[in-house]
C-alpha cells in the first residue's frame, strides 16, 4: 500500500459571503500524479491556494502526517510543499538563473550543499532555460516562463508539487512539451497535484482524478475509469471522448 502524502478533509473556503469551496476532500499518495478537473469557477485554484496556505480555510489539511493548520506558507515550502500558481509569480526583473537559485532559498538556509547539482538537473530537464540563464525572466516567452516556474519549484526539491493550469495560454506544441516534462517528473519521485482545464491531457498523465463542480467534489476515481465515465466524457472530454488521445 502506498504512503499517503496529502490528506484534505472537509475543506471550506469563503470569499466574503461567497462560499468557494465546501466540504472538499481529497488525498495524494507518494509517487503519484493526481489531477483535479472541472469547469471555470469550480474552485480548483481556490483548492490549491488553500492547501498552500495562501487562502484561509476551515477543515483538515495534513501533509506527511503533519497538520498544516497554523503553518505559514514559508514553512510549508520548507517541508516540501510547492505551488506553481496559474500566474507563475516569477521575479520578472531578475535573471533566469537568479529565479532558479531563489527557488532553493529554504534549502540554502538549511545549508544544503546539493543546490548546484539540482540546478544542473533542472537545466537538463529544460535545456532552453540554460540557454537563457542570464536573460531577464520578464523577457521570456509564455512557454519558457512556464518552464521557469516549474524549474524554480523543482529547485526546492518538493515532495508534493502542485501545478495550477500549467498549459494555460500556451501553444499546443509547448503544452505537449510541458505535459511530457510533468509526466517525466514521476520517475524522480515527485508527487504531483495537477489542476487542469485540459481534462483529456490531465487524465492521460495522472493516476487518479477528481472532478470539482461548484465548489464540491462531484466525482473521483482512477483516471482511466474517470476518462470512461459518460458524464465526464459529455462534460469535459467532448467528441471523441477517451479515444481522442493527445500524444504525451
Amino acid at each position, binding site marked *: 500500500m502506498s504512503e499517503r502524502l496529502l490528506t484534505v478533509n472537509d475543506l471550506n473556503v469563503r470569499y466574503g459571503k461567497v462560499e468557494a469551496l465546501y466540504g472538499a476532500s481529497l488525498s495524494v499518495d507518494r509517487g503519484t500524479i493526481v489531477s483535479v478537473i472541472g469547469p471555470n469557477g469550480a474552485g480548483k485554484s481556490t483548492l490549491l491556494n488553500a492547501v498552500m496556505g495562501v487562502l484561509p480555510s476551515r477543515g483538515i489539511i495534513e501533509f506527511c502526517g503533519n497538520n498544516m493548520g497554523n503553518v505559514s506558507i514559508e514553512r510549508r*515550502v520548507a517541508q516540501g510543499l510547492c505551488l506553481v500558481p496559474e500566474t507563475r*509569480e*516569477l*521575479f520578472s526583473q*531578475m535573471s533566469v538563473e537568479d529565479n532558479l537559485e*531563489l527557488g532553493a*532559498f*529554504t534549502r540554502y538556509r538549511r545549508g544544503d550543499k546539493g543546490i548546484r547539482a539540482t540546478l544542473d538537473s533542472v537545466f537538463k530537464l529544460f535545456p532552453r532555460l540554460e540557454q537563457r540563464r542570464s536573460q531577464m525572466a520578464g523577457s521570456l516567452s509564455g512557454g519558457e516562463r512556464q518552464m521557469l516556474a516549474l524549474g524554480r519549484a523543482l529547485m526546492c526539491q518538493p515532495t508534493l508539487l502542485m501545478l495550477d493550469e500549467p498549459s494555460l495560454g500556451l501553444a499546443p506544441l509547448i503544452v505537449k512539451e510541458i505535459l511530457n516534462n510533468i509526466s517525466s517528473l514521476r520517475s524522480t519521485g515527485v508527487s504531483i497535484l495537477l489542476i487542469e482545464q485540459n481534462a483529456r491531457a490531465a487524465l492521460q498523465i495522472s493516476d487518479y482524478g477528481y472532478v470539482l463542480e461548484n465548489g464540491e467534489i462531484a466525482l473521483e476515481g482512477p483516471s482511466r475509469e474517470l476518462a470512461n465515465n459518460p458524464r465526464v466524457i459529455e462534460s469535459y472530454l467532448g467528441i471523441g471522448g477517451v479515444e481522442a488521445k493527445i500524444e504525451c
Partner: protein
Amino acid sequence: MDFQTLLILAQDAVTNSAIYALLALSLILVFGVTRVIFVAQGEFVSYGALTLASLQMGVMPGTVWLLLMLAGIAAVMETFRLLTSGAGQELPRSLATVLVPPLVIAGLVKVCTPLHLPLGWQVLLTMLIVMPMGPLLYRVAFRPLADATVLVLLIAAVAVHFVLVGLGLLFFGAEGVRTPPFSDAQFQFGFLSVSGQSLWVYVASSVFIALLAWFFNKTLYGKALRAVAFNRNGARLVGISPHLAGTFSFALASAIGCLSGVLIGPVTTLYYDSGFLIGLKGFVGAIVGGMASYPLAAFGALIVGFSESFSSFWLSGYKDVVVFTMIIPVLLWRSLSTVHYEEEE
C-alpha cells in the same frame, strides 16, 4: 562666483549627496520590501550622532532605554502572537531572540561608557545601540500592519516619526551637538582644500554603497530581499518570509541612518529633530528614482546635494524651498510618463 567658491560648493554638495544617497537607497529598500514610506528614517541619523556625542561625554545615552523599551514591547507582542496561534513551543527561542541582544548591548554600554574608549569603539557601540532599533520598530509598529494599504503604513510611519522625535528631545535635550572629527588632517588639491572628515564621508559612503551592491547582486539573501520587493507573493511561494525580509530591511535602514549620523556629526551641528529634514532630502532623491531604482536614486541624491549647496550660496534663506520644490517637476514627469495601477485593497 569665482572658481574657488565653485569648488568649495561642489565639495559640500558631494559630501551631502553621499549621505542623501545612502538614505535614499535605504528608503527604497524599505519601501520595496515592506511598502512602508519610512518617514522616520532620518531619526536614526540624529540618534546616531547624539548617541555618539553622549558616549563621548561619558554619559549613558537615553537611546539604550528606548532599545530596552522596544525589546520589552516586542517580547509582549511575540508572546501574545505565539500563544494565540497555538505555537507556544516557539516562545523561549523567540523571546531569547528579541530580549537577549538588547540586554547584552545595554550591559556592554553600561560597562564601557565610563571608560572613555577610543573613537572607533564608541562608533561601534553607537551602531550596536541604534541598529537593533530598526528591526524592533518593524516588529512593534509595522509587522502587525503588514497587509494594510500603503496609506495606513504611511500614517503609522508618521506616528513613529513623531514618537521618535519626542523621545529624542527627552533623551538628549534641545541642545545641538557636533562630535569631534575622525581626522583633523587637511588635504590640498590645487585650489581645493579637503578635510579629512569629508574624505571619511566619501570613502565610508562609497564602501557601504559598494557593499550593498555586492550584497543585493551576489548573495542569495540580497537577491531574496530584491525578490520580495519585486513580487511579494512569488517570494512567499519560494519560502522567503516577508517578515524576515522586513526585519532585515529595517536593520539595514537603521544601520545606514546611524552610519550617516556618525559621519556627518563632525561636519554639521545636529539637534534631536535634525534627522527629519535630512531624511526628507534623501526621500527627494528616492522619488527621483521612482522609489524603485537604486542608481537613479543615487543620481537624484546628487541633484539634491548640488541644488542645496548652490542655492545656499545664492538664495541661502530659500535653500530648502529650492530642494523640496524640485520634487514637483519630478512627480509631474513621473505621473505623465508612467502607467498607473490602483492599489488592491
